């Protein structure tokens, strides 16, 4: 792990020195929380608000941030250089993703504490289930970020290519708008989208709402397998010749 730590520390230093990456990773969730709080969807539902905050954080801090970072490192041949060393491929990806993952979890924790302090106690307290949801959600979106690099040629293009991977799961998760505002077919598809089960599990764990746990867990595991396969199949370590 110390080998991954060496790379992760360097990546952390780079993140601290990149204002745009920091704004995307920290600023967007910071803006989203008050917006969601004022939208009225989460009146008297601090658990639901925390679930929404974590969902948005996973998208911004883990997904968008990581697509940009990986493409930038591929285009400047950094990934190729790292492959010449002793790190395994999985260690290179983990070390590169580590700051984004740490940021996601740190923001989720701090955001959760802030919401509780400002709005009120959570309706539920199943912390292990919440942790599983965050862990699986992060893993799925890290893998989806790796997959997204396959059709993202430059870091600048990442602003565009990440939009579908950001907006579609966000809308289908129900954290922005109630899903019953959408047509029936959208409501039928939504539970199978990658962020929806994360929000479902977090809502059960933190808002105390009732619902099946196994189905969203199974869907997340399915996404994990699918995105893992796609990442293995399509991720490129160097610029295409």
């Amino acid at each position, binding site marked *: 792990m*110390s*080998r991954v*730590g*060496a*790379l992760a*520390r*360097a990546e952390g*230093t*780079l993140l601290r*020195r*990149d204002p745009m990456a920091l704004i995307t990773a920290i600023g967007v969730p910071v803006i989203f929380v008050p917006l969601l709080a004022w939208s009225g969807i989460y009146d008297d539902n601090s658990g639901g608000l925390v679930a929404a905050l974590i969902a948005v954080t996973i998208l911004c801090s883990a997904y968008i941030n990581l697509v940009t970072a990986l493409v930038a*490192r591929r285009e*400047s*041949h*950094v990934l*190729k*250089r*790292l*492959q*010449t*060393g*002793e*790190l*395994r491929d999985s260690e290179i990806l983990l070390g590169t993703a580590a700051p984004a993952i740490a940021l996601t979890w740190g923001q989720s924790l701090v955001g959760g504490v802030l919401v509780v302090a400002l709005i009120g106690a959570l309706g539920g307290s199943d912390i292990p289930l919440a942790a599983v949801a965050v862990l699986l959600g992060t893993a799925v979106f890290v893998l989806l970020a790796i997959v997204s690099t396959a059709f993202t040629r430059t870091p600048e293009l990442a602003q565009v290519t990440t939009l579908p991977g950001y907006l579609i799961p966000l809308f289908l998760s129900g954290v922005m708008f109630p899903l019953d505002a959408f047509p029936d077919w959208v409501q039928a598809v939504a539970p199978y989208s990658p962020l929806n089960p994360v929000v479902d599990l977090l809502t059960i764990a933190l808002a105390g709402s009732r619902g099946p746990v196994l189905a969203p867990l199974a869907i997340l595991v399915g996404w994990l397998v699918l995105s893992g396969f796609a990442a293995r199949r399509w991720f490129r370590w*160097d610029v295409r*010749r």
Partner: protein
Amino acid sequence: MTETAAVEVSDLWRSYKGFDAVRGVSLTVRRGELFALLGTNGAGKTSALEVIEGLAPPTKGTVRVLGHDPMRERSKVRPHTAVMLQEGGLQAGLTVTETLRMWAGTLTRSRPIDEVMDLVDLRDRARVIVRQLSGGERRRLDLALAIVGKPEILFLDEPTAGLDPESRARTWLLVRELLASGVTVLMTTHHLHEAERLADRLAILHHGVVVREGTPTQVAAAHAHRVVFRTRRALPSLIGTVDVVGDTVTVTTTDVPATLAVLDAWEPGLEVSSRPATLEEAFLEIAAGVAA
């Protein structure tokens, strides 16, 4: 794999979208030697080297580094090898020290970072961000990353490209020191004089094929000799190519005794010198498609 071989390549092919960049290359790099891979741009040097380094799979053929497949048995090979890539791969936002510290942290064994910075003359640039380094300084940092892990085999892809003469001389001195300590070096270069002086053996690639292999002397000897003399007289019929600059005549010939005999008969007592082709002359002939 022979005991003395550090690298063995057998019938290596590498193709991209139907284009064969490397076509049936076979070569052996012995332990402790400097083996130079020469060729014009697009000859297939980097394509071959990337497969040998384990960065790309061969389309066909086998590569063994210290007896292992460098791609499939990466974990067995990597602790013993280091690579200096032809193109960047440095994190532009880190300082020289941070870059070296990060890289050293990923290795099984490493030299002290200060020692490595001294070796490549970057100590006074330790706190400078990589994007603010000159091209030559970045190249020296590339080399620093390659040697920080005390490798047994060093792969250098154009190690002196973009360096000023002083940095180039310093780099070659360092390479010589590494060779003296038993490190095996496989490198590509465009600097033929340096390859001629430093390489124990070399191979010249042309259109993806090894067209010459051996010591620099052997490779040059396989090409036509140069017979040089001075005259202003009309020349006799000579075997070979004749070049006249002022009153100096250079005859490029594969049959030196016959040429000397013709000249002796034409002008007895003519002062004639003869020398083998230089590596550069041999290389240029190969690049121009002239068979020896």
